[in-house]
């Protein structure tokens, strides 16, 4: 293989970076989410810096322990970056506009450019953190070289991980491109990968092999990385081992790159298996949804108009075929991901969670299907508006699509959380009833906001996918409304508040919960009803071109 051109790869990096920055600027909500993630990361980074300081100062144990910990840190970082980059590459590992790029530059340059962008995107923040942690280690150790060598070792680990992750990601894409089975179930695989991504991001993964890693830290190559990171700081650091570490990490990065080029040649220039959708879809989510409503594919269920069932079925079908377009619904989970994964792993549920779950369930139920009912119709909107479907039937269909899944799921998860949190029976009943009512009401409120603030422009939801998502203003207005009307239930349903009121006013905590939930339900039902009515009227009088 000829050596790659650094100039061309650099051009790919510059252009890709420019595109991504512009895409990020265009999608304000992604930028806001990124900023929020940055803020949330400050805490663990601070913790790592403190740990590194004490490690450097020898507070944690002998120099041998520090050496082991440094080696293990490099390997852990490399592993984390490998998984992260691999997941991103599986999601979007092909060049955009391939006919332009692949005909203008050799594959080796394109691969190097794309891998470098991924490396920068993922390892940029990681290396920044590594420098902070290394500096804390150096301060603790009272040794300046520690900053240099610890940063070098961590950056090398990140680079090796990024390169390996890129190759692994392309390999998974190749497997999906070649295997009919994998291609057919790639949505399921995607969900599994997303959960993996979620677990990695929120740190909710058990790492039983950490103990093994510490044992391995005494042996090469992990010991080499430890020596590299602590060279000039610890007398126990082996110069030869450090040199070996300094060779191995770039070598792994180069090997990952070479493998990526080989896989890309097979992936980008060969046809892919594309499973076709069957013509009839009697089963699956759409059919299942209709079954839940007790109707056939064309029939009505009691008071539910057939048109509503049709709208709901179509909404389901679209969601099933492009689940990634609803990705934004799970983003709030990143905020509570830490406590949630801790609760799942340890079985200890914090008291506030059962009261908060109906709020998230209601938010997600509405955000998925009713927060942009008009804009989500896209190019089909003129057809829908002139089809004769009434606003009531249309909005009802959208609400049903969300509620059919949102209500039972929210209620079940809330009930389980309340039981696990040892809520009193009355308090459990209160939060479960709230979980049954709030998503339904939220659907109506969301429809009102969505029809008032329709969003037609597609936004970039991932690097390679664009989709029409509700407007940022719509998200904000709806979220605010939902939070405000949930305040009584959140306050009353939180045990600490109940206990305080019980001691102050002599009112039973369960009564406080019931009153809080009752107040929220009353507000929600009124708001949901009015919202539904407004949305239906708005749809009936809607003109795509204004007027």
């Amino acid at each position: 293989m000829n050596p790659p051109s650094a100039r061309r790869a650099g051009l790919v990096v510059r252009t890709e970076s420019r595109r991504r920055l512009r895409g990020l600027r265009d999608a304000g909500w992604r930028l806001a989410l990124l900023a929020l993630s940055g803020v949330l990361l400050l805490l663990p980074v601070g913790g790592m810096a403190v740990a590194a300081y004490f490690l450097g100062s020898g507070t944690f144990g002998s120099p041998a322990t520090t050496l082991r910990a440094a080696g293990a840190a490099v390997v852990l970082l490399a592993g984390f970056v490998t998984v992260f980059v691999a997941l991103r590459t599986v999601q979007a590992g092909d060049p955009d506009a391939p006919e332009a790029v692949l005909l203008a530059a050799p594959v080796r340059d394109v691969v190097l450019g794309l891998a470098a962008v991924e490396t920068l995107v993922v390892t940029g923040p990681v290396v920044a953190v590594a420098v902070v942690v290394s500096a804390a280690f150096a301060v603790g150790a009272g040794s300046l070289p520690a900053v240099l060598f610890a940063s070098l070792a961590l950056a090398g680990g990140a680079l090796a991980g990024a390169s390996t992750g890129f190759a692994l990601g392309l390999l998974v894409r190749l497997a999906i491109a070649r295997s009919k089975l994998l291609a057919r179930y790639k949505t399921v695989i995607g969900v599994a990968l997303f959960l993996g991504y979620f677990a990695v991001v929120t740190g909710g993964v058990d790492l039983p092999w950490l103990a093994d890693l510490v044992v391995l830290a005494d042996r090469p190559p992990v010991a080499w990385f430890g020596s590299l990171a602590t060279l000039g700081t610890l007398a126990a650091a082996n110069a030869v081992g450090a040199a070996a570490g300094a060779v191995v990490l770039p070598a792994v990065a180069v090997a990952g790159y070479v493998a990526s080029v080989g896989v890309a040649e097979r992936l980008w220039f060969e046809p892919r298996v594309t499973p076709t959708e069957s013509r009839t879809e009697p089963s699956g989510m759409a059919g299942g949804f209709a079954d839940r409503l007790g109707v056939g594919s064309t029939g009505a269920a009691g008071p539910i108009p057939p048109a509503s069932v049709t709208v709901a079925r179509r909404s389901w079908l679209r969601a099933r075929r492009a689940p990634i377009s609803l990705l934004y619904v799970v983003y709030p989970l990143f905020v509570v991901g830490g406590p949630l994964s801790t609760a799942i792993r340890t079985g200890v549920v914090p008291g506030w969670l059962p009261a908060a779950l109906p709020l998230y369930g209601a938010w997600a139920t509405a955000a998925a299907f009713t927060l942009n009912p008009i804009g989500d119709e896209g190019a089909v909107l003129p057809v829908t508006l002139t089809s004769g479907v009434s606003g009531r039937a249309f909005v009802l269909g959208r609400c049903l699509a969300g509620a059919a899944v949102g209500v039972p799921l929210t209620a079940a998860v809330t009930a389980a959380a309340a039981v696990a949190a040892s809520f009193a029976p009355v308090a459990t009943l209160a939060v479960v009833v709230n979980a049954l009512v709030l998503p339904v009401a939220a659907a109506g409120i969301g429809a009102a906001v969505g029809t008032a603030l329709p969003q037609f422009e597609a936004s970039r939801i991932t690097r390679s996918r664009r989709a029409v998502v509700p407007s940022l203003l719509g998200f904000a207005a709806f979220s605010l409304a939902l939070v405000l009307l949930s305040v009584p239930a959140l306050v009353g349903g939180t045990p600490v508040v109940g206990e305080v009121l019980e001691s102050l006013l002599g009112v039973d905590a369960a009564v406080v919960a019931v009153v809080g939930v009752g107040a929220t339900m009353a507000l929600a039902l009124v708001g949901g009803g009015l919202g539904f009515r407004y949305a239906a009227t708005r749809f009936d009088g809607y003109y795509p071109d204004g007027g």
Partner: protein
Amino acid sequence: MVTPAIRTDGLTRRYGDEVAVSGLDLHVDRGAVYGFLGPNGAGKTTTIRMLTTLLRPSGGEAYVAGADVTDRDAVTPNIGYLPEEPPLFEELTAREQVEYVAGLRDLDPERAGDRADRLFDRFGLAADADKRIGTYSKGMKQKAGLVQALVHDPEVVFLDEPTSGLDPRAARTVRETLDDLAEDDVTVFLSTHILPVVDELADTVGVLFDGSLVAEGAPEELTQRASGGGTLEDAFLAVTGGDDAAGSGDVDATDVGVGSDPTSGVDSGPEADSGPEGDSGSEVDSGPEADS
């Protein structure tokens, strides 16, 4: 002997058990405009993707601008390609896009810039060249894609529906540009469904049907060979199995076959309606891009 711009011998592409392109033999002279016709799913895009090195052939040989299509580095500097969906980045301006591709092609920035400016000017895109492509209409994207395909002054240009989405004035500009390219000895491989464009520009027309070349010749030759002297559309319909509009059935498909080979008439074998892009309701291997 002058090396042809495009030569294929038995070029074949299979997708699993399906044959998308079957034993294709082409010979396109330098500076010629070759009109490549065929119904949807005939294998046109698959053929173009093989000739542009974007798809590996399953069999046979193909040479573009004298280079083997399996040697991508040798072929790509000499070709330009505009697929049906112009490959553009919506976040960039047209100028940034063209500069990017010119940079990847190692072109001198100044010369590439001058040429891009001339092409922008020619296609009426100069005033909008610094606007983001995401704000462009379909026709403007098509023009930007054309500039991108021509900026490096290629020897052979592959164009898949280049006038798609263009208003009549812009379509006329494209046709004139193709004419100019041919005069400059640039070979144009043109795939389109707009038959009058082919009739006007093409020196030779090839009709692909079910992966096989079923007719080839000058436009007037093809129409003459069609009994009754119909139009190119009549000839096209005759060789691709549609006879309703082909002059009340007075066009004999065997009259417009490839050259004088009596065996190369319409292939109405068992695979005639089961191209790789056809929806059979089951899983099939398909190319990265459906034929248009």
